[in-house]
């Protein structure tokens, strides 16, 4: 029966090509506008590390000013101090933990033809790589012992390896940075978590760093942070050591915990740690420590831009206008064919048969609108990419995957069926006798 309805539907579409084309266009435009924004929202709010997001926890300690919170209403600072970061690292109460910050280095290629150049760097402890599932092209991260012995080791991003070593396996070779010689232990493969969850302090959508080197080496070389440094308490003395021991927050601490029990234990440990620091005269605010897993932290940091949410609201209303249009067109079409419907009813078609026939026709129109809508979504994303071309990361936000393509088709069909309900119901209720008289 369905095949017969589809055939009738196609015939119906051919009967009123202009009206049908208008309906397909209305749905396509609505789907295109809506899916363009939904797609961007979907990418922005995506899970950057789905396989591990529920075992990685971002740590916040409220070490802030007694007179005002770090962030309203009563939020602890987003980052940690050197004092607290290294203390938590040393305690090693989680399965794994990582302390890191964004920095920058100058690479001095051995080849005298190549001029020295700046790279973005991450000063980090060894567990960064296994904890965040960093994919390696060659080699691997450094051993934990390298952190303790201040070994000058480095992990390169794929592009830097390309630039310095021509893309070869450079494990074991050396690289000069700011006058120091580093040994390469690994080369990271393509890696672009969206958002760059492990450090959103300078914005959620950045390129990952180009090189990674040990936190301990970085601190010993007095390499400052390249992200945000926030302080509330003036320092007593000058110099690097006083900065390290200050109440300035400038690094990120993550811990790996499996299950609610471990999380609870770790929270208790954090509270005990803060209490012990209070005894030393630090932490003037009431206990207010936080453990957020990756997705909780992304929600807390509001990584989806306000503009996208405004546009999402507008795009949904846009789709509604397009659907109202479609309902009007369908109504017009069905009313025009009321004679035809009456005839079929008089010849024995049941109300449900009429209903099925017109719903199938609407479904076909929805499918058409969905397919064209995917094309329009692609165009829309291209348009957004051009409009926002100043944003370095934009090409990563305008990608379309299968989930979104299927979602577009599903949304189109559901919309078309939703729009068809009322007109079709009206079609079923046509009284054959009244209509046939006028024929």
């Amino acid at each position, binding site marked *: 029966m369905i095949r017969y309805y589809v055939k009738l539907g196609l015939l119906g579409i051919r009967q009123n090509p202009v009206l049908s084309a208008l309906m397909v266009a209305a749905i396509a435009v609505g789907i295109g506008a809506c899916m363009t924004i939904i797609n961007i929202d979907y990418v922005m709010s995506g899970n950057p590390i789905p396989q591990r997001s529920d075992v990685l926890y971002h740590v916040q300690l409220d070490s802030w000013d007694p007179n005002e919170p770090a962030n309203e209403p009563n939020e602890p600072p987003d980052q940690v101090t050197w004092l607290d970061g290294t203390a938590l690292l040393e305690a090693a109460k989680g399965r794994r933990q990582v302390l890191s910050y964004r920095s920058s280095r100058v690479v001095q290629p051995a080849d005298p033809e190549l001029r020295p150049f700046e790279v973005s760097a991450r000063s980090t402890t060894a567990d960064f790589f296994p904890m965040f599932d960093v994919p390696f092209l060659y080699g691997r991260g450094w051993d934990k012992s390298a952190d303790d012995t201040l070994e000058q080791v480095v992990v390169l991003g794929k592009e830097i390896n390309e630039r310095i070593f021509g893309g070869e396996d450079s494990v074991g070779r050396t690289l000069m940075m*700011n006058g120091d010689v580093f040994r390469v232990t690994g080369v990271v493969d393509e890696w672009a978590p969206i958002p760059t969850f492990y450090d959103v302090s300078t914005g959620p959508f950045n390129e990952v760093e180009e090189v990674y080197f040990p936190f301990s080496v970085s601190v010993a070389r007095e390499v400052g942070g390249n992200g945000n440094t926030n302080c509330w308490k003036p320092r007593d003395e*000058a110099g690097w050591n006083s*900065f390290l021991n200050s109440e300035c927050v400038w690094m990120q601490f993550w811990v790996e915990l499996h299950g609610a029990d471990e999380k609870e234990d770790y929270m208790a440990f954090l509270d005990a740690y803060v209490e012990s620091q209070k005894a030393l005269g630090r932490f003037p605010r009431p206990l207010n420590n936080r453990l957020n897993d990756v997705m909780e932290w992304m929600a807390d940091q509001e990584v989806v831009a*306000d503009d996208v949410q405004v546009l999402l609201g507008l795009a949904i209303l846009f789709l509604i206008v397009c659907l109202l249009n479609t309902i009007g067109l369908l109504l017009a079409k069905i009313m025009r064919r009321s004679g035809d419907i009456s005839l079929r009813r008089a010849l024995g078609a049941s109300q449900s048969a009429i209903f099925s026939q017109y719903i199938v026709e609407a479904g076909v129109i929805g499918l058409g609108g969905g397919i064209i809508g995917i094309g329009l979504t692609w165009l829309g994303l291209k348009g957004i990419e051009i409009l926002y071309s100043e*944003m370095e990361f934009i090409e990563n936000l305008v990608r379309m995957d299968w989930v979104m393509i299927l979602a577009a088709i599903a949304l189109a069909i559901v919309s078309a069926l939703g729009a068809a309900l009322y007109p079709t119901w009206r079609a079923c209720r046509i009284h054959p006798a009244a209509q046939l008289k006028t024929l």
Partner: protein
Amino acid sequence: MEIGPIWRALMRNKTAYVLIALQIAVTMAIMVNSIAIIQERSRLMARPSGVDESNIFYLSSNGFTPDFDDRAAIVEDLEAIRSLAGVVDAISSNTVPLRNGGWSSGVQTEAGDDVDGTGVAIYFIDEHGVDTFGLNLIAGRNFEPTDVEWYSQSSTRWPPAGIISQDAASTLYPDAPNDAVGKTIYISNDQPVRIVGVVERMQAAWKDWEGVERSMLVPAFLEDSFTWYVIRTEPGYRDRLMPQVEQMLAESNDGRIISEMTTMTETRHKSYHEDAAMIKLLVFIVSLLTAITGLGIVGLASFSVARRTRQIGTRRALGASRPAILRYFMLENFMVSSVGIFAGGLLAVAMNIWMVQTFELTPMAWYIIPAAMLILWVVGQAAVYGPARRASLVPPAVATRSV
């Protein structure tokens, strides 16, 4: 008037008209709120930064060798840059307005660690700074060479003089903003800074910061291997001088990297590009939406004219003139539009209240609503004109034919 009969006719076949009125209402809500956002963004984008944007460029110098002499490099570089033909003045600074990276600090009018501070953006400049940025000094004096110090990691004392922006003055001294010169403010709780001058305007590096208009100029060279050189040129010299300065600095010292050369024009463009893109997107959405609604009106009107051909013929046969038929459909559309437009006005206000609460926008200006009403009435009348004219051309003879 024909309003009564038209209204009764509408009521006999409500659905289609309700659909159109709903479309107009939603279109109205989107249009009003989009215009409100566009207005707000345009206002933000139009704020001047206070500096001579069209003639300034800047670049970074990053010394990386262990024996790099920070002080000597800054002194030599500035001397070399300032002596170039076409350069008005140049300084070493920690950032420039709108660059989205910089230094802010709290300052307070009394010393003490429990006094509320006011956040200000900090610019380290020397006595050439006011001239290089092209700032308008409205009270007090510029820095003297004797004010300028070297400030570094190992400094424990903050330079004791400062020039603040007018907005910072009125925030610090709400009662007497014009008497700020000569007063002492405190940074880091208890380090005194005497205000020696006030500039009309100097924006911070972060355009979205609520304190973007508050800044303080500090007479010091930041002693660091990394610095920004800010260069102001004579009008028309900027683009010619840029490669020249870059090459000169790169060649003068092997121990550093010169990079990130940027003009202030580019910096503004980059800083506000998201707002500019949002404006374009909203204009596109609203235009497309208005077009779709207009087409919807055309479609419905054509359909209702086609359905009522016989009645139109009958009216014509009974003596109705062509303009009367035209007027009937125009008036019908006006009534349907009005229902939609008034409902849309309510929807728009509700949506604006929600957006103001959720996204901390400023509430819209009242006149956007009547402006949008006018636009939609005109669009509705323009859209219905075609079908209405066709209706008026229906010959009276149709009435006698069986359709």
